[in-house]
C-alpha cells in the first residue's frame, strides 16, 4: 500500500499499524506525536491504528527551539 509519511511516499506492506510504522523509522513512540489524515492519534491508540492505502501520516517530535 502507498502511504505518505512526512511528505514522503512510502510503499508499505499491508497490516501495518502506526506503531509498526514508527518503529520502522527507528523512532521511539514515547516521544512521537502522530497525525493520520489530519486527525491526531493518541499514543495509546498507536498499536491498534492500522494504516491503509492512501493514508497521509505526520510523525513529529520535540526539538530545540526558542
Amino acid at each position: 500500500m502507498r502511504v505518505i509519511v512526512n511528505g514522503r511516499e512510502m510503499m508499505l506492506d499491508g497490516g501495518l499499524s502506526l506503531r509498526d510504522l514508527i518503529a520502522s523509522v527507528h523512532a521511539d513512540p514515547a516521544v512521537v506525536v502522530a497525525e493520520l489524515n489530519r486527525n491526531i492519534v493518541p499514543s495509546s491508540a498507536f498499536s491498534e491504528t492500522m494504516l491503509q492505502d492512501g493514508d497521509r501520516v505526520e510523525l513529529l517530535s520535540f526539538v530545540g527551539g526558542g
Partner: protein
Amino acid sequence: MEQTDTFELGGRALTSRLFTGTGKYGDDGLIPAVCEASGSQVITVALRRVDLDKGADNVMRHIPGHMTLLPNTSGARTADEAVRIARLARAMGCGNWIKIEVISDNLYLLPDGYETVRATEILAREGFVVLPYMNPDLYVARSLANAGAAAIMPLGAPIGTNRGLRTEEMIRILIEEMSLPIIVDAGIGTPSQACQAMEMGAHACLVNTAIATAADPIGMARAFGQAVQAGRRAYLAGLGSVAALARASSPLTGFLDQEEGGI
C-alpha cells in the same frame, strides 16, 4: 523577598522570572547545566517532523523534569497552522502551555498580530495556557487579553539579533496599560538588557539566542539569572526619579574653610 515575589502563571507559582529556550545549542547536552545555572523554570521547544532516515530527535531527554514545558508553534504562518501545531504539542502529554508564534516574514521573523489573536481565541477556548509572541502593539495586546491569553510576550528586537530592547518605549506603554503579565521575548542580547526589562516592570524575560550562542552558555545562563533577579529587585525597591540637573548627594553647607554666612 524571594518567598513572596512569585509569578503566578498558568496555575504555577514561578520563582524564576527567566524563561529559557532550547534552540541553537551547538551541543544539546549543555541544556541541563544551563537550566540549573539560570534557575529557569520554563523552557521552550519546537515541534518538527521526525527525520525518517535518522529517527526522532528528542530534546526532552535534556530537559530537567521539574521544568514547565512551553512548546512553540514555530513554522506556523497562519492561525490554523498554529492551532494544528498546538494540538499536536499537547498530544505529547507534557502539559498544555503553548507559545503562539505565527510568522510569515522570513527576514525579520516578525509575528503576525491578526493571526496570533485568532489562534489565541481558539486555543484559550480549548483550555491551553496561551503565551502569544507579538509586536508591542497596544491594540493587539488588548485583543490578546480579550481572547484569553495568560500573558503577552512582546519582542525587544527581532529573534536572534541580540539587538536589545529596541522597542523599549512601546514595551513601557504595554507595562503601563496592561494588567496582563508582560514577558519580554526575543532580541535580548545581554544580561543588562534583561535587567533593564525587569527594572521597567516586565514580569519575566525569555532568552534563547544570547545564552545558547555564548562562548560559555552555562556562564551566560548564570549571568542572565542574576540579571533578571537584580532587575526585579530594583523594580520592587522603587527606582529613583531621573532629572536633567544635578542634585548634590552631599550637604551643601558646613564646608571646611567656608566664609561666614555660607557660600
